[in-house]
């Protein structure tokens, strides 16, 4: 089990009476009353009246968040990032190590976990880097980092260019007992690319970042994972060809997992025509066939997790011409509503599938305890109002940054309450 760090909190007692309880891994979808006593689910009992229109589900787990701490606390810190996560319905999140300094040593990681114990509103796990300073050359002390609490290893934000280094990381991941996660990007193919190479980049004149820049690295890393017989997690997949590679590898028995972001599930590169820097991310938004392939993989379980890749940026960094803007958008506070509005309401993805891919799916990948609605389980719960309609505006965020691709949109479905590790961490 990966270790999570957060403030030791209260253990609350509360009851959710006559709600629609949906727990996909337990096959639950019925009107029930759920009682929590001192942080633990004490009773799951028949409802005394028809369900009141609210949905109670296992709280969400985000396997891919940039908390910008240490180094860019002006963009996000542990307190603001975990408050944002709580408001998004999350009971646990995993933070990426591409900070300043990079989380590449036990001392940096130790300082961070201690800070999380003082400041994090919900439990946080920290991934450590694969290479020192994410420089792609020297392997980090993975076993020591794992002992100090690293939830996994990644150089996210940058690809690991050298195949030999990925191989070593996979070998050491066996001793460390923690998974390796890779950001797949072949840099000589993506160089100078700001948006997906296709019709839109040709028309607008952008340097293209082709799908093949992702999929050749996906293929390479899966081959290495197969050779070393080690699990491998693929971060933020964006391209149809990458999904094809993943399907083949899984069919061949390779223990590969993958995640996809809400923006890659909802948007295509057509959105780039707005030249709004808040639709600029890495990997870039791709074509409609790519989006369809990602949705199909999410539906059939080839992709097990939804990850926000929440990437806060200071306002002045995004108030520049599209080409100059950094990659990355926020997502913690809008993920459920965006996906509910764009995929569940129109009937593309069932609610239970969405809830599973936002909770048990990502928990499994990193060996976290699966949030579940079961007597005796710690209370990790989210209460949702599917009928609520709300507007996303700059003032609505708990995150320190507002670089959301949804600014100005109207969303359906809202998080009313979040219980993380037995404590009420958010109430609308």
């Amino acid at each position, binding site marked *: 089990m990966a270790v999570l760090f957060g403030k030791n909190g209260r253990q609350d007692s509360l009851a959710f009476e006559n709600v629609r309880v949906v727990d996909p891994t337990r096959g639950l979808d019925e009107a029930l009353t759920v009682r929590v006593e001192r942080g633990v689910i004490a009773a799951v009992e028949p409802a005394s009246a028809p369900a009141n229109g609210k949905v109670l589900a296992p709280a969400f787990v985000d396997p891919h968040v940039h908390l910008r701490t240490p180094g860019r606390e002006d963009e996000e810190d542990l307190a603001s990032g975990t408050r944002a996560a709580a408001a998004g319905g999350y009971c646990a999140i995993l933070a990426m190590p591409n900070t300043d300094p990079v989380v590449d040593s036990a001392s940096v990681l130790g300082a961070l976990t201690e800070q999380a114990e003082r400041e994090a509103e919900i439990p946080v796990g920290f991934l450590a880097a694969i290479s020192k300073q994410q420089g792609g050359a020297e392997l980090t002390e993975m076993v020591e980092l794992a002992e100090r609490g690293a939830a996994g290893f990644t150089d996210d934000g940058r690809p690991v260019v050298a195949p030999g280094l990925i191989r070593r990381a996979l070998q050491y991941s066996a001793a460390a007992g923690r998974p390796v996660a890779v950001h797949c990007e072949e840099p000589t193919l993506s*160089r100078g690319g700001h948006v997906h190479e296709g019709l839109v980049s040709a028309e607008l004149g*952008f340097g293209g970042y082709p799908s093949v820049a992702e999929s050749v690295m996906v293929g390479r890393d899966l081959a290495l994972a197969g050779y070393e017989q080690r699990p491998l997690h693929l971060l933020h997949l964006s391209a149809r060809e990458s999904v094809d590679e993943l399907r083949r590898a899984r069919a061949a028995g390779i223990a590969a997992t993958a995640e996809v972001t809400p923006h890659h599930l909802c948007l295509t590169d057509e959105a780039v025509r707005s030249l709004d820097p808040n639709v600029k991310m890495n990997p870039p938004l791709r074509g409609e*066939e790519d989006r369809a392939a990602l949705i199909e993989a999410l539906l059939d379980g080839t992709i097990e997790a939804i990850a926000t890749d929440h990437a806060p940026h200071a306002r002045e960094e995004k108030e520049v*011409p599209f080409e100059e803007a950094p990659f990355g958008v926020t997502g913690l506070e809008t993920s459920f509503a965006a996906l509910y*509005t764009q995929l569940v309401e129109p009937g593309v993805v069932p609610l239970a599938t969405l809830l599973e891919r936002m909770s048990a799916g990502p928990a499994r990948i990193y060996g976290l305890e699966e949030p579940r609605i079961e007597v005796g389980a710690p209370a990790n719960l989210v209460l949702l109002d599917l009928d609520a309609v709300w507007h996303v505006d700059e003032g609505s965020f708990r995150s320190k940054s507002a670089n959301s691709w949804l600014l100005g949109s109207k969303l359906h479905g809202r998080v009313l309450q979040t219980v993380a590790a037995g404590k009420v961490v958010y109430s609308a």
Partner: protein
Amino acid sequence: MADVRPLLRSELLPPKGPVRRHLISIADLTREDVERLLALSRTFARSLERDVKKLPTLRGRTVVNLFFESSTRTSSSFELAAKRLSADVMSIKSSGSAVEKGESLKDTLLTIGAYDPDVVVIRHAQIGAPHLAARFTPAHVVNAGDGKHQHPTQALLDLYTLDEELGGIEGLHVAIVGDVLHSRVARSNIQALVLMGARVTLVGPPPLIPRRIDSLGCEISHDIEDIKDADVVYVLRMQRERMLEGANYVPSLREYTARWGVTPARLRPGQKVMHPGPMNRGVEIDGAVADSPESLVERQVRSGLVVRMAVLYDLLTQGPVEVKVAEIEEVA
């Protein structure tokens, strides 16, 4: 394949604010818009034949030229166009301005916006700069070139030149030769020519012809001999300053010139030649071609003035017909 519904549910998109008229991309124009602008350009050309060349049309209006990239032709012709229409003109270049002190584009735009300009003409090395100008100033924005994206007034002046010289654009065959990948002129011209019913063939080495560019309705060739079929050969500048170092777009200029340079031998008698300037003589275009009677290069520069007068006039007077331009929302 999953059953995927249309991209964004339109009823959930932000409400559109009032639309302000800008000229940012040829893609925003209709054929009627272009025809109206060409007709206006002809009117202004006649007015310039008079002794007194100044018209009182835009008296009291303010035009700000913001040039963050070097320019001779475009900046001078916008300035003169505004003056010929009696507008007050301010021209700001990045060198010698607060940009050199590290001022952001947004702050420069807010500063300019404080003078309530009617039109901001902007040239910038990065795609999306004119959109930022539309967001942070209250003015009508004219894109005078943003990175590799668009240079709409260049395309309009090229259309005007062709229309005047060849008596129409519909049915013409134009070969655009060279570095299409890095060329905003090529992108605007392909869209403009196709919109007006011309046939367009792009000719150049494969890495300099963007994938999927044929979706704009043009043809693609890598053989320089194919320019012989065209009525007009439009030569693009090799944009060495925009090429990433080590990206191997062209192994050498020597090979490029030998293979794709436009020389007298590769042209058919009577073919017209155009170039947006500045020219690299001896690289993409042979000096003899540039100076030949079939070259329309000087004519293009002259067209620039009247076309830019037409654009400024049209934006500020609403034109006889409501123009469809980039729909950018007003900011409060």
